[in-house]
């Protein structure tokens, strides 16, 4: 068997996944923190203040990566949920449901930092603008997935129901992405392009790239840890969890 394929099969085993997540999550968290620290240093101390917005534009360095993560995590959750629904892979159910609280966190950051930036720049904390409204709906969708998953006792049935909501909700992502194009929006249009020329000055982009990479690494750590917690919860009656719990408790005097 192809080694990569074999590794994927092994990863589907709950004890194997637990060991994998416990081993690699701290690395992802640590790397994520380091990269974000470097990005934040650039964002707060290296990049000059914007000639129109002053220092308030520095909020962009946490707002934009969080906004991208809020949508990317939802897309990933829908992919995991689709795989789980079609092939009934338990690990994919766990990973899909682990995405929801992390994505909700990033969406909350996006909305709150956007509001904080909006107050001095737009003169208001909130406006029922298409981009803001669709991002708020995204938060409600995340909360719906979390709520549905916790409302049903049977973990597998709960993951299927919540996964279905995630798949249906994915239609919102292009609406969020193109809301500034389709409607007359108070929110500014796309200024940063991964492919093609950005309208933002090159000297200001580098910390943003570090922050985008850092938040992704942090997300990998958070996903592994949340999936590990759910995996332990589902497998709580199994001998390997009891062994792990006894080992974590340490030797008794």
């Amino acid at each position: 068997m192809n080694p990569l394929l074999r590794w994927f099969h092994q990863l589907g085993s709950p004890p194997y996944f637990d060991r994998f997540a416990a081993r690699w999550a701290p690395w992802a968290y640590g790397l994520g923190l380091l990269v974000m620290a470097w990005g934040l240093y650039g964002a707060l101390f290296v990049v000059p203040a914007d000639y129109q917005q002053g220092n308030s534009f520095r909020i962009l360095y946490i707002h934009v990566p969080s906004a991208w993560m809020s949508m990317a995590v939802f897309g990933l959750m829908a992919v995991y949920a689709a795989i789980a629904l079609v092939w009934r892979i338990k690990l994919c159910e766990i990973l899909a449901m682990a995405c929801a609280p992390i994505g909700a966190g990033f969406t909350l950051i996006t909305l709150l930092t956007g509001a904080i930036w909006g107050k001095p720049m737009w003169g208001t904390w909130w406006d029922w603008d298409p981009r803001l409204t669709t991002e708020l709906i995204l938060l409600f969708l995340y909360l719906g997935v979390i709520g549905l998953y916790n409302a049903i006792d049977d973990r597998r049935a709960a993951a299927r129901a919540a996964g279905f909501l995630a798949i249906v909700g994915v239609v919102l992502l292009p609406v969020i992405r193109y809301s500034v194009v389709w409607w007359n929006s108070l929110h500014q249009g796309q200024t940063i392009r991964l492919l093609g020329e950005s309208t933002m000055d090159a000297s200001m982009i580098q910390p943003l790239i570090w922050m985008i990479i850092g938040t992704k690494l942090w997300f990998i750590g958070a996903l592994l840890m949340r999936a590990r917690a759910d995996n332990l919860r589902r497998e709580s009656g199994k001998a390997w969890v009891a062994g792990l719990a006894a080992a974590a408790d340490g030797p008794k005097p």
Partner: protein
Amino acid sequence: MNDYTDYVIAAYAVFFVVLGWDFVSTRLQIRRELRNARMRVARAAARTPSNPQSTSELSR
């Protein structure tokens, strides 16, 4: 930083509080699951008839 500093500080505080909450809540959840597993083992051990403590309780 001389202008809008309060807004910048507030926004970064939100960022770190939410990420910090995510980190801490996950740690606590894993700890809770492992504690539940230990308690489950302890309960199972207490129910086992070979356990001297449980037999003494029954014989009383």
